[in-house]
């Protein structure tokens, strides 16, 4: 056996060792290899996940633990499944990230793709990290709401209604004696759920229209732009009032209205596509004989993805505000379901006596929307297509 053969075997054995370590505990493989930052990041995730699991177990709220208690376990299934899904993802992610990093460090010429450059730049941008942090916290709260809440989101305490913040109810009680903190925790589900789904619809509809209009120009573009102008010329609240009075208020109505009539992204995507389609590589693809669908999917879309992502994050923020505004006006989510906007509306009458009813939901809206906005802002810088 030659010397190089021997070295090769030693190296391979060490690599195998690291993989096993990573499977034992996510991040351990990274730390052994000397990638401290990444390893510690995985450990941080692990600690957070462990914390959530601890809370859930201590309160007996994992779905099958709840059977023994007198409560119905159905409300815990979603959170429980997500919790274990997150653990699986964490393990797999650590393993595959380690494998990719080891391979990348082995190859002589390390190839850096666009997304690697983007993530490197993003990790150096405090603005984006703060935004992402805020959004991650809100998402965690929304997904694991039943673990965190004390179970008093709907339960009324008619003796102590309007009680100020105390050790038992950190953010006080509302006018029906419901816990404000619990309502805020569950309210995050409404905000993110409606905001997220509506934004998804916005991007599907608006993105499609913008793509078609921007790429084909001419008649389709003219028709799409006129439709957008007509929709934009109708006052949004009047439109919502009309539709709510026809279909009745509710989560579905809200999502549909926001999703279909929030066509703002269409214009931004159209303008981006308009500039991308003039690039020489589009012409080159046509010269090669590539079909239109391929040009759109392989050449136009990947080069417009940056602004698409920015618009998406910004739109989520806007939609959360709109949902809160509509709930405030009474066109939103139906009363017993906790939502931040509806909480503000209730708080109106008690502004002088019970400030906690208004301040905390208001702060939640502000912080969440702020998180999405600075993330969008940071993405705009980080995803700059001219980056090297």
């Amino acid at each position, binding site marked *: 056996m030659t010397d190089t053969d021997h070295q090769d075997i030693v190296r391979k054995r060490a690599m195998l060792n690291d993989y096993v370590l990573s499977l034992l505990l996510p991040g351990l493989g990274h730390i052994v290899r000397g990638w401290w930052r990444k390893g510690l990041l995985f450990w941080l995730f692990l600690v957070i996940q462990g914390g959530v699991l601890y809370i859930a177990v201590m309160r007996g709220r994992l779905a099958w633990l709840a059977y023994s208690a007198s409560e119905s376990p159905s409300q815990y299934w979603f959170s429980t499944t997500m919790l274990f899904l997150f653990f699986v993802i964490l393990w797999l992610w650590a393993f595959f990230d380690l494998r990719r990093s080891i391979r990348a460090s082995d190859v002589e*010429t390390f190839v*850096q793709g666009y997304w690697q450059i983007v993530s490197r730049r993003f990790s150096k941008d405090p603005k984006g990290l703060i935004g992402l942090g805020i959004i991650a916290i809100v998402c965690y709260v929304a997904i694991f709401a039943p673990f965190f809440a004390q179970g008093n989101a709907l339960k009324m305490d008619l003796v102590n209604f309007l009680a100020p913040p105390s050790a038992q109810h950190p953010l006080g009680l509302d006018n029906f004696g419901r816990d404000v903190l619990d309502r805020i925790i569950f309210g995050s589900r409404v905000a993110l759920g409606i905001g997220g789904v509506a934004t998804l619809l916005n991007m599907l509809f608006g993105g499609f229209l913008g793509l078609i209009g921007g790429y084909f120009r001419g008649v389709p573009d003219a028709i799409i732009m006129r439709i957008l102008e007509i929709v934009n010329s109708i006052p949004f609240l009047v439109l919502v009032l009309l539709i709510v009075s026809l279909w009745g208020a509710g989560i579905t109505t809200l999502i549909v209205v926001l999703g279909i009539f929030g066509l703002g992204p269409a214009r931004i995507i159209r303008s981006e596509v308009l500039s991308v389609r003039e690039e*020489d*590589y589009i*012409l*080159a*693809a046509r010269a*090669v004989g590539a079909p239109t669908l391929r040009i759109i999917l*392989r050449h136009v879309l990947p*080069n417009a993805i940056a602004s698409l992502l920015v618009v998406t994050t910004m739109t989520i923020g806007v939609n959360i505000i709109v949902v809160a505004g509509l709930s405030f006006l009474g066109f939103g989510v139906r009363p017993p379901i906790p939502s931040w906007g509806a909480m503000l509306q209730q708080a109106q009458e008690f502004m002088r006596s019970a400030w906690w009813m208004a301040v905390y939901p208001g702060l939640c809206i502000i912080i969440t929307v702020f998180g999405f906005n600075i993330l969008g802002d940071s993405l705009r810088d980080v995803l700059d297509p001219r980056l090297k």
Partner: protein
Amino acid sequence: MSSDNILLDVKNLKKYFPVRKGVLRRVVAHVKAVDDIDMYIKEGETLGLVGESGCGKTTTGRTILRLLEPTAGEVRFRSKKLAGQGEEYKEVDVATASRKTLKALRRDMQVIFQDPYSSLNPRMTVGAIVGEPLLVHRVAKGRERKDRVCELLASVGLKPDHMKRYPHEFSGGQRQRIGVARALALDPQLIIADEPVSALDVSIQAQVLNMLEDLQEEFSLTYLFIAHDLSVVKHISDRVAVMYLGKIVELCKTEELFTNPKHPYTEALMSAVPVPDPDYNVERILLEGDVPSPVNPPSGCYFHPRCRYAKDACKTEAPVYRDLGNEHFATCHFADSLSLRPVRTG
């Protein structure tokens, strides 16, 4: 003219861009970017196309490829790949070809772009860029395609492991080589090179030019070489066409153009060629005024307001593009009688 080995024959090709104005977007005028041009390219030769910026060189190239729809005219192309059994070639009019024929023709006519920075998709790896033509035309797939891409990269002087990289990791010259590899992928007969070296550093220009010459020999390619740099054109072309304001004013063998120009515009253009001799005192012919607008070209001969030999006839009568013998074409009333100054080289 002999017709036996003509690969591409362009007849009366026109490309007008409408100028729209007002609320109703009515067409008020046309930009005559390519205004009735005739030329042919023989198999295996390099035809240079020169002219100042805005004279319609690029538009001519793109209209021939039908990346732009021609307004009028014919572009007859002798395709070998479309030939039926027993035929050596099939003659197709690119200007009126159906979508299907056009797609098939893409395998025979390819293009190299001027700007190596915008002609490569920044989100695709080099392997994907060079392999795309093979994918689109279902020429090769999987392992075979990868091998073919490696071959292509090697033939333009790049390494196989460059395949996995992205365009931004390469220099201008390397990027232009990637563009050439993409054009070669389908083994075309004709390549329209749209100022392939003008965006490059002078030291790199020579490398890329020599590579293009080597490739021409290796793959028996025919080039339509668009450029504005006369020294580049002189180096690479067998024949040269000079364009002015959407028209070809002169077309002849390269040597002939430089020694015996027949059009006053060519003469002026030639006098701008730098001579590598510090003692040689050039008397440059300075053209007065600006290039006229192609929306509203001058009457008669388009060049008459700037021509120092212009006579009354030039203001009213448009000269005809005619053969002066020996494959020398010119668009000037006095092409036979003027004695113009040739360029001094070396």
